[in-house]
């Protein structure tokens, strides 16, 4: 299994440009998450999804959008990039269902380092 994969690894955007960060997992996890990590600030949840077709906002959703049309993919869209969106972005996934056997730990991708200038 490749686990959680993210592309691109690095990207530089100009203010006002848009882009999509790709995330895919091959572990058949139902939950997927997008975080941003800024120095000294810890991981902040942007958006999450509990299954295909279901998404919801996390702590810091402004300026971002997501969709989840399949179990495997969870892209993050940045519209009208701003310098405040300069960060490292991580995608994660986990498996959980009502009943015994849920483990809750999240598995992370390698990250995308984004700079907006």
């Amino acid at each position, binding site marked *: 299994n490749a686990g959680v994969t993210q592309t691109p690894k690095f990207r530089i955007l100009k203010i006002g440009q848009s882009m999509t960060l790709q995330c895919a997992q091959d572990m058949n996890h139902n939950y997927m*998450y997008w975080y941003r990590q800024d120095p000294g600030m810890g991981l902040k949840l942007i958006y999450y999804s509990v299954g295909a077709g279901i998404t919801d906002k996390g702590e810091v959703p402004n300026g971002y959008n997501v969709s989840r049309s399949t179990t495997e993919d969870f892209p993050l869209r940045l519209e009208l990039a701003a310098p405040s969106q300069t960060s490292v972005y991580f995608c994660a996934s*986990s498996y959980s269902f009502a009943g015994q056997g849920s483990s809750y730990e999240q598995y992370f991708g390698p990250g995308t380092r984004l700079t907006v200038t």
Partner: protein
Amino acid sequence: EDQVTQSPEALRLQEGESSSLNCSYTVSGLRGLFWYRQDPGKGPEFLFTLYSAGEEKEKERLKATLTKKESFLHITAPKPEDSATYLCAVLPYGGATNKLIFGTGTLLAVQP
């Protein structure tokens, strides 16, 4: 408000010098506590899950313990390859979203 605090922010050890990292948490109810290791330029790597006070988990030189208010990550006879940032996260009870609350991490440097 649910909160996670890690200390110290940074720790420098000599190879072989054992120590502990602390993760204090405030949640209305704890479903699970998680430890991750993060190397520079990489994503967090899952280490342990602890579910109830008194529980312990071990992996090589690392041992995680849990009380009702905090968790410790004990590092025994560390090696330079143990150098990394160690993150703690909690999963509170309530809801079906499985949203973790992360601390800001402890940066560990082990010198040969």
